[in-house]
């Protein structure tokens, strides 16, 4: 390049830079996060209203005496049994017994379901061999595993974990499989041209690209863990096992303590929702938001 056109080239280059900066400014999408007050108004208020309505209808039915108190306890009676349990100091203990079992079981399911899902998704033979069984297992109610688990392992914590694993591993593995299946082929081609093949491709391209499907699988896996655990706790209650929410429910039935039964159901529901809201929903939103996949409403 002759030095005589350097000056001209410089000016032309500055021109282009300015033009480009202008285009970028015009085209850039402004993304912003919704303010807290709006979140409260649009996301938190509606479910609270719904809960209040349900309680109001419930109270109304009790007042109208549609059925005897043994079948439908008043909200206040259920509240009393909550505070009784709280005052005895056992409420948190009962909840923690189940939650710790559920979470530990879930983590085990995660450790088994992830490599299993990856194998099914990436190895054709494995997919043909166990893929259909794995998705079929999802439709088998995990309560069906309780009798064999009790026979094999006896009435203990291992039995509970076995039931959780049989319920949650297929969900987690299937979530990962469908996540991998939905990876756009373009990403795989782009990865290959960058040199991401084999294990490198799996680690750098396939796994992160499959993350949304995987997280959806985790969410479902948690729901299955929790359900399986409750089935196991209700059927296999034994004094050696410690009092969990399932046993609390079963005890209520044995004592014909309807407020206690309601209390146990509400606690099981609350814990399931709380773990989802505190753990999995934020995780899912963070993954989707990072990719610009959250639809602004």
């Amino acid at each position, binding site marked *: 390049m002759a030095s005589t056109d350097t000056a001209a080239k410089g000016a032309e280059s500055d021109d282009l830079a300015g033009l480009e900066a202008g285009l970028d400014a015009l085209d850039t999408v402004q993304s912003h996060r919704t303010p807290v007050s709006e979140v409260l108004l649009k996301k938190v208020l509606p479910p609270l209203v719904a809960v209040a309505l349900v309680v109001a209808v419930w109270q109304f039915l009790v007042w109208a005496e549609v059925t005897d108190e043994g079948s439908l306890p008043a909200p206040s009676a259920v509240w009393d049994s909550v505070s009784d349990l709280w005052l005895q100091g056992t409420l948190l203990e009962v909840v923690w017994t189940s939650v710790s079992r559920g979470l530990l079981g879930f983590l085990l399911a995660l450790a088994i379901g992830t490599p299993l899902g990856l194998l099914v998704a990436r190895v054709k033979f494995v997919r043909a061999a166990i893929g259909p069984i794995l998705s079929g297992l999802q439709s088998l109610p995990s309560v069906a595993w309780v009798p064999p688990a009790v026979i094999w392992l006896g009435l203990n914590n291992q039995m509970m974990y076995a039931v959780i694993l049989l319920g949650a591993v297929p969900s987690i593995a299937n979530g990962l499989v469908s996540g991998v299946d939905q990876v756009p082929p373009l990403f795989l081609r782009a990865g290959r*041209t960058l040199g991401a093949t084999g294990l490198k491709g799996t680690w750098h391209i396939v796994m992160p*690209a499959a993350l949304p499907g995987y997280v959806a699988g985790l969410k479902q896996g948690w729901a299955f863990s929790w359900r399986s655990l409750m089935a196991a706790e209700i059927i296999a209650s034994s004094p050696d096992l410690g009092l969990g929410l399932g046993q609390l429910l079963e005890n209520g039935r044995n004592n014909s303590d309807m407020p206690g039964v309601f209390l146990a159901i509400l606690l099981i529901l609350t814990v399931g929702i709380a773990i989802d809201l505190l753990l999995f929903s934020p995780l899912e939103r963070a993954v989707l938001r990072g990719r*610009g996949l959250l639809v602004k409403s």
Partner: protein
Amino acid sequence: MATLTKDQAEDRTTTTAGPAARIEHVSKSFTGPAGGQLVLDDISLDVAPGEFVTLLGASGCGKSTLLNLVAGLDRPSAGAITTQGRPALMFQEHALFPWLTAGKNIELALRLRGVAKAERRPEAERLLDLVRLSGAYGKRVHELSGGMRQRVALARALAQDSQLLLMDEPFAALDAITRDVLHDELTRIWRETRLSVLFVTHNVREAVRLAERVVLLSSRPGRIAREWTVGIEQPRRIEDAAVAELSIEITEELRGEIRRHGQH
């Protein structure tokens, strides 16, 4: 590679023996339900070091197939393709990974190439600077405009430090104004880096605007129909009279090729 000094760039071209890409008697057929279909028929083409070649053709000429073969994403049915190392490839879609920021997309390319961790960040910033996106390091892909995404994709392709850049209609999805600016940008970067470029397009003006050599492919099967050497001095504008003149000549030839398909 991207910001090599002129001396280094020249050193590179002199040590490179032979063309940046050599395509020798390449044919490609795909087996479909209706038997084998010949997509590319006996293509021979050399891309010299530092040369900018556009492959031009109507749909069905197999130009993207040819690019995939050169990129090593697919194998030819017959013939041979030689390149100096693994070529970089840019797609019509930006193909940036949405789970990474613009900067991390480039760093992933560097990492896969084996660049040491400490050098990745400065190198990525340098490449972003080259495509004039210095401020975009921490931006997510969805926060960038279409033109910015393609520039990050270009920076990522340059991060592969390949001597051959393959481009598969990279500007086809952009609006006309942005495309025009990116033509200027690509010409500038090509002249700075002295990369060899093989650029696929169906846009005659774009082909003439960018290339030193335009190769016209016929369709079904794809064969090399004709070649033009573009003698117009860079930097060109897509509006230049000389560009228009050659574009008309090539368009006539292209239309002739297309017409043949309606005659039987």
